[in-house]
């Protein structure tokens, strides 16, 4: 049985009004985990007793009139890259099996301060170095709608857990798309804020100059609530509008730009059709959509690759020498590849990053955001290395990164949100990209986009595919 209500916004209001209890909600989530985790493999660690105790504490505080805010009593999970005091941070790797965190990551401490109930730690692609979640010391996480498919990655367990009703949100990390890709694959909302806004202290790094953290959840409103908590914003939220009261998007028609060149050039046919339908719905709502071009978008993959692999190699070099057998084979080889990159080529990539940042800034001038797909294909089958698009075989990993990695390179904030479904019922995700440093403004725009073409996504038992639920 899926937990009710469906979103954090709904749950928070119900808890504050004492129409339900945190203990009942957490019990329902833990029951769902017990029932479904053997199939989906979404969680690596479940904090049953701690979660129940936290929930009872939340109920006592709320009953005493001390409601801490929108996350108080809300069950949330963490990608298993985040340190939780006294627990192993596995990063889905045998390399980390002896690690026990001696303190909470900063983000975890902020969630606890806000009264969130931490229910457990979720599966991921080993050390976040992959888009499918297939390479994990704990086995692959699986898609809630079709367990033969990947939920995306690297935060795949997080997305599977939220989509399946095991928790209300999960905190993931995103270095090339690892929040937005699984959010899109599972029909959820995923937020990558502006680079550097949210603390990565206590989070196992992949590539420190590309790493971001953020929520995977069921609505833009929920993403705004978590984002504000993680950056320590105490302003009151306008929960009906999806952001802080003083910054939610105003009522003027949206102006969105589509970077059609490069980003829309290689899409699965159903994703392309779903995206164009979403564009039409936006136009019907009064939005203006114009085509733009990021001139050097074709260089982004090479820039990204040299940065991410160099930085990852620096972090892993010692472990690769001492314990190579503890990595999954493909992750080990990709990390080893990074050890051969020359300093001069890393420097070229950094120069290229500045160019891409300026070019993304330029195409955002005069519009409220960029609008493009979040994921070029529907959730792929597990174990399938390539997909056929437009008559050509494309590596799954490459194609899954194509629409997202640009904004890790540039640092601009981006939200993935559901915009439709394939004929098989698999979610299709869109992406909205905002001005650098204005994640709050982006959330307002994303809330307006969400209102135009989709309702908040329900957990699996009542799930009919994004865009079909209203």
């Amino acid at each position, binding site marked *: 049985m899926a937990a009710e209500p469906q979103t954090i916004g709904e749950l928070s209001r119900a808890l504050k009004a004492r129409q339900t209890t945190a203990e009942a909600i957490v019990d329902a989530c833990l029951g769902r985990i017990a029932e479904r985790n053997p199939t989906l493999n979404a969680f690596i660690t479940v904090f049953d007793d701690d979660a129940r105790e936290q929930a009872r504490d939340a109920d006592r505080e709320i009953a005493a009139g001390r409601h801490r805010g929108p996350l108080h009593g809300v069950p949330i999970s963490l990608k298993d890259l985040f340190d939780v005091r006294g627990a192993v941070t596995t990063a889905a790797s045998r390399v980390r099996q002896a690690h026990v965190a001696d303190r909470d990551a900063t983000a975890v401490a902020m969630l606890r301060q806000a009264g969130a109930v931490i229910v457990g730690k979720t599966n991921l692609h080993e050390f976040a*170095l992959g888009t499918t979640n297939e390479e994990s010391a704990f086995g692959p996480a699986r898609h809630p709608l079709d367990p033969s498919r990947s939920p995306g990655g690297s935060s795949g367990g997080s997305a599977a857990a939220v989509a399946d009703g095991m928790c209300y949100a999960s905190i993931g990390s995103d270095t090339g798309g690892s929040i937005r890709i699984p959010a899109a694959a599972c029909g959820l909302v995923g937020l990558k804020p502006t680079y550097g806004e949210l603390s990565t202290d206590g989070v196992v790094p992949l590539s420190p100059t590309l790493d971001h953290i953020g929520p995977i959840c069921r609505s833009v409103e929920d993403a705004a609530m978590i984002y504000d908590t993680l950056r320590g914003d105490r302003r009151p939220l306008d929960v009906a509008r999806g952001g802080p009261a003083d910054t939610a998007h105003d009522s003027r028609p949206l102006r969105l730009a589509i970077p059609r060149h490069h980003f829309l050039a290689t899409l699965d046919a159903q994703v392309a059709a779903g995206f164009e339908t979403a564009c039409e719905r936006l136009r019907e709502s009064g939005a203006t959509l114009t085509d733009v071009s990021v001139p050097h978008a074709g260089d982004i993959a*090479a820039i990204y690759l040299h940065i991410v692999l160099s930085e990852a190699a620096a972090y892993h070099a010692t472990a690769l020498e001492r314990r190579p057998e503890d990595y999954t084979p493909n992750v080990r080889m990709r990390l080893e590849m990074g050890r051969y990159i020359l300093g001069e080529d890393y420097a070229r990539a950094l120069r290229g990053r500045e160019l891409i940042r300026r070019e993304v800034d330029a195409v955002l001038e005069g519009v409220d955001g960029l609008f493009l797909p979040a994921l070029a294909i529907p959730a792929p089958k597990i174990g399938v290395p390539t997909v056929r698009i437009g008559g050509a075989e494309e590596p799954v990993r490459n194609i899954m990164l194509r629409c997202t990695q640009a904004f890790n390179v540039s640092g601009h904030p981006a939200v993935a949100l559901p915009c439709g479904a394939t004929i098989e019922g698999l979610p299709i995700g869109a992406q909205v990209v905002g001005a650098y440093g204005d994640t709050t403004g982006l959330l307002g725009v994303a809330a307006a986009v969400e209102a135009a073409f989709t309702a908040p996504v329900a957990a699996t038992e009542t799930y009919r595919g994004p865009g079909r639920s209203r």
Partner: protein
Amino acid sequence: MTVKAWLEMAIHDAERRGLPELKPLLEALAKATSALRTAEWNADATGEFASDAEPGSRMPGPGPEHGR
């Protein structure tokens, strides 16, 4: 070091380390490195960058397999 020379050295070193399975990944990386080096936005000490400054360095074929 040219991309070609770099690739030969990298493959040789990987084989010496008992990692022959790295070869196709390094070949893919070399294509990405070649694309990076020949991008028009690179700076150049002469003050005028020429995209063919390293003759024969651009490698044909599809792009790299990305890390993540």
